[in-house]
């Protein structure tokens, strides 16, 4: 099976401090460390496991700049066979539809049976997979937490739906899936693995290579634009209890009693 996984380089949310910059135009990025979007990493691991089961190859792709290459290499160190970087100044400022259009142009140059994305990324939009599927006219399923490869014409998938239930469906190939965390246990990628792929060539394709008209993507073609970042005024929020921990505990116990919290 020829599998393509779309990945994104995002700020590591674990111990980064996300604060809005003084002008409100972006978050403070000076001290941030970046890595591959966690959901995308699960998708790559799933792709590798499928390939190891049924044969084929795994390609990872991203729309970004030269910094984005490091995450392609990391996923290749994990086991992906090829990496492709889509980069061009004309791509900057694209909205979700723009990104999907850029990816679509590259995907059409190849022949893929399965296209995976992460369920969502740092902006929480969860949109690329669905848009890509519609543009490519392929069936789609989101928040997939299980993949069973039965035949080369269709696969069985499980989706994570409300209440922790799992919705099982059959979906024809080729198709697009967005992958939820917890579908597998991603393998470790060590420094050694990364060094081994340090000099593998990663082709870079721009607008011309993909036959994309400059105004159709990027900031020029975007219909959805972020205009600022802000921290909403806190409003009421919780009443914060003050005092020594003894006093707080006593106050809390009284409140809990009055609300029926202590039996």
């Amino acid at each position: 099976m020829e599998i393509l996984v779309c990945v994104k380089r995002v700020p590591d949310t674990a111990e980064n401090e996300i604060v809005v910059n003084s002008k409100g135009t972006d978050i403070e990025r000076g001290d941030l460390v970046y890595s591959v979007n966690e959901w995308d990493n699960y998708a790559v691991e799933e792709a590798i496991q499928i390939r190891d089961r049924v044969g084929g190859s795994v390609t990872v792709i991203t729309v970004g700049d030269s910094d984005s290459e490091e995450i392609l290499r990391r996923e290749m160190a994990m086991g992906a066979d090829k990496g492709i970087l889509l980069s061009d100044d004309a791509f900057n400022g694209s909205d979700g539809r723009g990104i999907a259009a850029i990816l679509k142009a590259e995907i059409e140059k190849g022949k893929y049976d399965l296209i995976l994305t992460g369920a969502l990324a740092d902006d929480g939009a969860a949109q690329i997979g669905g848009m890509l599927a519609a543009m490519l006219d392929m069936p789609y399923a989101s928040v997939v937490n299980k993949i069973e490869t039965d035949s080369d014409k269709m696969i069985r998938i499980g989706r994570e739906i409300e209440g922790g239930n799992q919705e099982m469906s059959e979906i024809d190939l080729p198709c697009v899936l967005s992958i939820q965390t917890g579908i597998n246990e991603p393998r470790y990628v060590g420094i050694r693995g990364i060094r081994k792929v340090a000099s593998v060539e990663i082709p870079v394709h721009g607008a011309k290579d993909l036959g994309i008209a400059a105004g159709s993507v990027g900031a020029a073609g975007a219909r959805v634009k972020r205009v600022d970042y802000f921290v909403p005024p806190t409003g009421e929020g919780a009443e914060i209890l003050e005092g020594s921990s003894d006093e707080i505990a006593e106050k809390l116990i009284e409140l809990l009693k009055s609300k029926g919290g202590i039996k």
Partner: protein
Amino acid sequence: MTQQIFAYITHKNGTADDSAFELIVAAKKIDSSASVTAVVCGEGADLDTVCKQVAAVYPEVWKVSNPALAYPNAEIVRGVLATLLPAGAITLVPHDTFGMDLSPGLSIKLNAAFVSDVVGIEGIDNGNLKTVRQEFGGQVSTHVLCDISAGAVLNIRSGSFLSDDSKASGSVVDKSGQAGGCVSRRRFLQVVAAEVGDVDITKSDVLVSVGRGIEEQENISIAQELADAIGAVVSCSRPIVDAKWLEKSRQVGTSGKTVKPKVYIALGISGSFQHLGGLKGNPFIVAINKNSKAPIFQVADIGVVTDLLEFVPELTQKINEMK
């Protein structure tokens, strides 16, 4: 504004989802004078019941009945909506797993713009709709301008627009015949129910819930001791289940259980909306977290900013001494 506004209604077992009554409120924020049309897909008696419920609030309801729509399949619904909706329509969809399945692709088919997970709407400015979204797991908010001139699909986060009590007596129009063929390359098989664990957290009036702030699996005993002292049950957020420290049946959240307790004590929980999405009703929420900026303090009634690993055992001790 001349564009029509539509609301996609999700429902189960003959009951419209809460979101149905929130979407119309959101629609009014886009255009207060708009006539909003609800679209309900399904089949049989359940569908009719839902249409009636919805007609009490929406001025017009489009009913699409087809055996293929007995189980909500986003692939089929997308085709239906793409056929039925007029050019330039503004479509509101709830941002749940169905909405995530349906809307991105729908926006492409309709050649409309798409804004995901909208938490606020601030009106139209020069053909652009100003919406509010969140990024980085809810740590920051952003204003997003959406060019709606060619139409738009908006996924609305549940609970962002509280339903008002406005009434209507809408007419139900059967659009089943115009919906087109309901075929799909994705076929529903079955729903596998989540495992029933040893404890049913949905049955307890008081919950002591743990999040990442509990730090280690062994510390969960601190929460259990508090729960024992006050007659509560221990629940948790998703990261605890992902780490396999507690069973899935203990998880509160959109991908876990929906609970309606009287009292909810959140220990070391940041308050992501996926977690809070599982907390319904109007519980008395107590949040204990050492990060004063945690979003949970926005929704909690009472907050204690302290190290829960130190404070909670003290609290438990005091409660036990009282008895």
